[in-house]
C-alpha cells in the first residue's frame, strides 16, 4: 500500500514518488516543491509540508529542526480575482 499513500493531495504526489525524489538528491523542501509542485496547490502545503519534512529527516538523517520551511507566500486563502479587483465596490 506504500505506493498508494498520498502525501500531497493537491499535487497527487505519493509517498513513493517523494522517497524517489529525496534519493535522487532533492533533499530540501524548496527543491522538492519546485520539482514536484508539492505544497503549491490550494491548501498551500498545510497538509503535506510537515509530513514531507519528517520524511526528509528520516531518509537523510538531518534533524527535523534543521529542515528549512519554504517561504510563506501570500495569499493565506484563495480569493477570487473579481473580488481582488474590487468589483461591487463603489
Amino acid at each position: 500500500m506504500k505506493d498508494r499513500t498520498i502525501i500531497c493531495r493537491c499535487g497527487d504526489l505519493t509517498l513513493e514518488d517523494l522517497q524517489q525524489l529525496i534519493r535522487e538528491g532533492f533533499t530540501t523542501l524548496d527543491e522538492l516543491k519546485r520539482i514536484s509542485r508539492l505544497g503549491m496547490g490550494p491548501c498551500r502545503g498545510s497538509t503535506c509540508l510537515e509530513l514531507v519534512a519528517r520524511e526528509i529527516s528520516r531518509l537523510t538523517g538531518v534533524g527535523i529542526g534543521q529542515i528549512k520551511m519554504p517561504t510563506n507566500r501570500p495569499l493565506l486563502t484563495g480569493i477570487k480575482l473579481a473580488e481582488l479587483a474590487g468589483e461591487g465596490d463603489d
Partner: protein
Amino acid sequence: MIKKRAEVVVIGGGVIGCAIAYNLARLGCRDVVVLERNYLASGATGRCGAGIRQQWGTEMNCFLARESMKLFEEMNQLLAVKRDIELKQGGYLLLAFSEREMEQFEQNLRLQQSMGIPSRLVTPGEAREIVPYLNTAQVVGGAFCPTDGHANPFKVTQAYADAARKLGVKIYTFTEARDIKIAKGRIVGVDTSQGFIKTTKVVNAAGGYAGVIGRMVGIEIPVKSERHQILVTEAVEPLQQPMIISFSYNIYCQQTPEGTFMMGFGDPTEPESYNIKSSWQFLEEMARKATRLLPLLGNLRVIRQWAGLYNITPDRQPIIAHSSEVSGFYLAVGFSGHGFMIAPMTGQLIAEMILEQELTVELKLDLERFERGELILEPSVV
C-alpha cells in the same frame, strides 16, 4: 570536497548557467564547475513567467528566439530528460491598443515571416476566436504566432543540469562565489564558501546579482535589478491556449498545462533593488487588469503570488560576451526579463565563445555597445 581546479567556473545555477555548462561539456570541455549559492533555479529562472516568444523586432532576436524554440521542441530527446519539460505551444497572442502599435506589429511581422517564423496579424474578431472570453472593446488588432508558448523553468534547468552532470560537469549548490582572484589582469581563481577553485575562465550567469559578480573583477556592468511580480490561480480545465500579452496595456497571462493561470505586469514605478517580497498593491492592480481584459477569469481564486528580479540593461537587451577588460571573464547577463526563452541559444553561444569556435550567429551583444552609444533598438520588449 569541491574540486581544486577547473577549466571553466560558471557562477549561477539558473537556466543560463546550466545551459552554458551543458553546452561546454557537449562541445568537449567537461572540466566545468557550476556554483549556485542556493538551489538550482532558485533565482530569476524559477520566478519567471516561463514564456517562449519568437515574435521579435530585430533579426538577431528573431534568430535567437527561433533557434531556441527549435531546441525547446527537441529538448526532451536532446537532453534525454527524466521529466518532461512541459512545453506547451499554444501560441502568443500579442494585442495592440492603438493604430501605431498595430503598425509596429505589421513591420515586425514582415521581418518574422522573412525568417520563417509563422506569425500572422489578427483582427479583434479573430483574436476572440482564439480566446473567446477576451474583451476586445479597446483592442485594435493583434499578432499571433501559433508555435510560441511556454515551458516549465524548473524542469528545463534540471534537464540541463542532469545532462551536464552526465557529461562530467560538477554542480555545487548551496555554494557561494565570494570573490574572483585576478593576477596581472588575468583570472586565477574563484573563492567560494566551500574553498578556492583555480581557474582562468569565469562565466557570470548570476541573474539578478550579475552586477555584484562584475564588481568582483572590477567591472561596473550597466545593469540594474528590479522586482517583477506574478500571481497564480487555482487549476481549472483547459480554457486558454495562447499566452496573451500586450506591451501597451502591460500584461501577460498564460494557462499552464497544470490548469493554473499565471499572470504579471511590469510596474513602471518599481525602483532598482534586490527586493523580492510580494505586495498587495500588485495583487489589486493585477486583478483589475486581468478581469478587465479577460472577464471570465474573475471567477478564479488566486492561490499564491511571488516575485523575482529582472536584470535590466539600458537597451533591455542582454550582454552575451567576453569582457574586453578582463581576459577570461564572460558575461551572460542583463536579460531584462526574457532570458529563459533564449537560454538554449545563449548556452550554445557562450560555450562557442569560450572554446574559441566560430559562433552560430553574429552577436552584437557586447558590453561596450553602451559606451559607443550603439544600443539595440528592439521595439518588442515587455
